[in-house]
Every structure is written in structure tokens, then in C-alpha cells.
């Protein structure tokens, strides 16, 4: 009995190559791929950061004793002093 595999693999030597593969611009494809990979990593990093830090910030913000006004006044204190200096 003849080997059916021989004839089967013979046909691939004449297989037509798709035109889009022959004209594929590898450098630009590689650049697009790199940009996509970087954006995926950046997104993953930001998501991980948000997920890990969100509970901390939420816990702080929802505390009844958390005085938003004092935080704001502390932040605005330098501005207030600067304003008074300018007036003087």
C-alpha cells in the first residue's frame, strides 16, 4: 500500500501564499503590537493601584471623625497667609 502521507504533504509545496502576508509591513505591525502591549500593562498597573489603594481611601473618607474642613483649611493655610502678606 502506498503511503498516503507522501502525496498529502506534496500539495503544500504549491500552496498559494495570501497576498496580505506577502505584503505585510512587519515594522509597523511590530510598533502597533508594542503600543498595544504597553497600554495593556499600563491599564493593568493603574487598575491594580486603584484596587489596592481604594479601600484605604474609602475607609478614611467614610470615617465620621474625618474632618474634611480641617484638611481643607490646612491645605488652604499657606494661601491665606500669602493673601494677608499681599494685603499688608
Amino acid at each position: 500500500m502506498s503511503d498516503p502521507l507522501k502525496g498529502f504533504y506534496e500539495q503544500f509545496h504549491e500552496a498559494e501564499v495570501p497576498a496580505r502576508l506577502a505584503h505585510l509591513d512587519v515594522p509597523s505591525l511590530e510598533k502597533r503590537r508594542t503600543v498595544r502591549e504597553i497600554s495593556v500593562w499600563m491599564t493593568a498597573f493603574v487598575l491594580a493601584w486603584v484596587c489596592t489603594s481604594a479601600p484605604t481611601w474609602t475607609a478614611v473618607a467614610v470615617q465620621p471623625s474625618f474632618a474634611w474642613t480641617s484638611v481643607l483649611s490646612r491645605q488652604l493655610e499657606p494661601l491665606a497667609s500669602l493673601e494677608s502678606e499681599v494685603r499688608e
Partner: protein
Amino acid sequence: MSVVTQAVHAVSGLFARAKRSEEVVSAFLQNERPCMYRLALSITQRSDLAEDAVQETLIRCWRSTKKLTQVSDLKAFCRQVLVRRAITVLKAHSSAELPEVEDAKVFGEQVDVRLVLQSLPADSRAILSLSYFEGLSYQEISDTLGIPAGTVASRLSTARERFRDAWEAK
């Protein structure tokens, strides 16, 4: 000529040679696409998967062009990357079927052989393809797949046996 001028010439010569080498690699990758596609097609037996494997291989080779300038046998290196990629792609799509139209167009009267080959594992199909389609020796297949030559002989024999059993049971 001063020492500095000589050094500048030497360095610029090195850069020019490196650039030429990269151009040689780039031209090789361009010319090799049809061979890469046909090998990938003989393993995956699906044009979309073959294209995917070649595209990935070209990107990987492009990314390591500098390394490729140091490789003595470029064809063997690219074949190694391509076959491994084709096996990975094939494993990911092992259960997917080829559309009937493409079946008829690509495989003609050999559809039966293809159907039997589809029942074999991806590694067996790759080793059969390297042996029958590429006509590689055990040592060359061993280098491509990264396995000992003795293992190549036994795996090839097992793949042929599996095919024969499935073919006769058909």
C-alpha cells in the same frame, strides 16, 4: 591619520556592517515568507492559523534582528520559532473545524487524509510535517523541536503508527 580619526572610521565601519547585517536579515525574512507559510500550513492545515503563526514568527524575528545577525543558520532559527508557534496555535484551536469551501480548495481529494491527521496531537502533526514536507533528518528535527534525536525517531514512529491505525479504522 590621527588615532582619533582612525577610531572614528573603525566605529563607523562597525555601524555600517551592523546595518548591512540587519538589512540582510530583513531581506531574508521577506523572501522566506512563502516557505514559512507553507510549512505552517502543512502543520496547522488551516490558512488562518498558518498566517497567524507566520505573523507571530515575523514579529519575534523582527524584534530580535540584532540577535539574528549573529545566528549562523537563519533558516533553522526561523523554522524553530515558526514550528513552536504553529504547535501553540494548533493546540489552542485543536477542536475548531475548517470551513468546507476552504477544505475543498486547499486539500482537494486529500480531505480524508487531513481528517485523519486532525485526530492526531499537534506534536505528532508537527513531526510528520517536518519529516514529510520539509524532508529533514532526525538531527535537524531534533534541533528544531529541542528534543534528542532518539526521541525524534520514537515520536515519528509513534505518529506514523497512530496515523496508520486511524487510517485503517476509517
